[in-house]
């Protein structure tokens, strides 16, 4: 069990020692997670909103698909993206494989269903009278939708937080399409996997702690931001 303690100690040394490589890995991870969350929410939240609020043919099939995709193994997503971006794949010419772009593509595919499914659930749980009342009071469809979104805003923010957490903690797809290449595409999670496979359990723990600290910081920031809207 001493490696848990070692990990804590090493974690603090790595975080506060200012090792440029560790800093680079942490910043790279943060960048991947932020870009992926942003893109996937720009797509997923409106998608979830439409699915959650409008009635159209095949809507239940869409919801079932989204919910199923929540259980999609990340390595399989990684494998697909890899197949498309690899030299012999359809988009191999772009040279995206083993780059930030490749990781973001995989993470977005992973996170869009999360953002969409949770947003859909959030707006579905809003009392239908909100929309009706808004329409009765003379609001246009856009204003009515905004009223619904405002009722569901905390749940929608949770959807974004969950998507961010999932992307930040993801390792399977990031390894396959990112390649875990040192000084280029190594993320905190792939660094944990590598340190573990090198038998450096303390270092692995340390990277894990840095990841947790990052997640904590982002969530505290969100909490502060959210708190302003609170009564």
């Amino acid at each position, binding site marked *: 069990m001493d490696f848990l303690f070692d990990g804590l100690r090493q974690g603090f040394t790595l975080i506060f020692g200012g090792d440029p490589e560790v800093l680079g890995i942490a910043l790279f991870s943060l960048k991947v997670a932020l870009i992926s969350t942003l893109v996937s929410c720009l797509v997923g939240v409106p998608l979830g909103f439409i699915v959650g609020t409008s009635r159209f043919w095949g809507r239940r099939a869409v919801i079932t698909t989204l919910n199923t995709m929540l259980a999609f193994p990340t390595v399989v997503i990684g494998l697909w993206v890899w197949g498309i971006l690899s*030299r012999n794949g359809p988009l191999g010419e772009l040279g995206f494989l083993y780059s930030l772009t490749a990781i973001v593509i995989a993470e977005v595919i992973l996170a869009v269903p999360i953002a969409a499914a949770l947003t859909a659930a959030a707006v579905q749980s809003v009392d239908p009278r909100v929309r009706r009342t808004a329409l009765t009071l003379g609001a246009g469809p856009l204003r009515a939708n905004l009223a619904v979104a405002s009722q569901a805003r905390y749940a929608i923010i949770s959807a974004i937080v969950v998507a961010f957490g999932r992307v930040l903690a993801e390792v399977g797809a990031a390894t396959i399409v990112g390649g875990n*290449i*040192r000084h280029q595409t*190594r993320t905190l999670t792939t660094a944990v996997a*590598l340190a573990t*496979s*090198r*038998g450096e359990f303390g270092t692995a723990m340390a990277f894990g702690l840095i990841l947790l600290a990052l997640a904590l910081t982002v969530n505290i920031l969100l909490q502060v931001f959210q708190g302003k809207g609170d009564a």
Partner: protein
Amino acid sequence: MTKTGLNLKTFAVVALAILSAIVGPIPGFAQNDNKVVLATTTSVRDAGLLDVLLPMYSEATGDIVRVVAVGSGHAMELGRRGEADILILHDPSGEEQFLADGFGVDRTSLMHNEFVVVGPSSDPAGVRGASAVEAFSKIAQSGSRFLSRGDNSGTHAKELTIWNRLGGPSRDRSWYWESGQGMSASLQVAYEIRAYILSDIGTYLRHSTGSRLEIMVSGDPALNNPYHVMLVNPARFDGLNVEGARRLRAFLISADVREMISEYGVAEFGRPLFIPDVD
């Protein structure tokens, strides 16, 4: 959302099914009694050799072998923590340190094969047919891309011994890349980025995409790849399965098994993947 409340009977059936899946035994999954923990380098597992040998061993002895296939560095770390009973390794200098530190006993030669330097068929550094050291030196001078495993595995250790003869691995990141992944995955990366890479011959032959890279250097004595088997020192840890580990070691170095090793892979690749050693 009109239908609420499941039928109680349906609910009970589903709950029972889930519960039995949680607590029930899984067919084909081993129980824990009499298990021997074998920490081995990934190349031995990836070559498929253990899939042939271990079922025979389990049938003969009743022991269940739990294989933890990791890099040699990780395998020795498991040994240093008493988490494994027996080790198969291919990092001679690391193994000697491991023995000197008192964590291992009864180290025996098991088998060997060789490492090869492989690379893109265009051979930008012109290393085809060179010795390993010459090849590495040419790769460095021409700045051709080289992919290091970078993962403390036996293959990584071998690669570093060659770089160290040239004054250490390069810090020039424009051509010296590290994948930090296993052999098969690294061969794949090397193919994609058109890099040279050091590989054990077994994984190279078995890895179909890796084989699209071509062998540039082979047959150099500097690229010998010896595998040893050793026990984790029973004096260091309580609770090791010493009996099981001794039985497994005796099995692995028995004449019958040596015979099988020398024939393994011949049908598929026209050459054995490993050559058994006799101490």
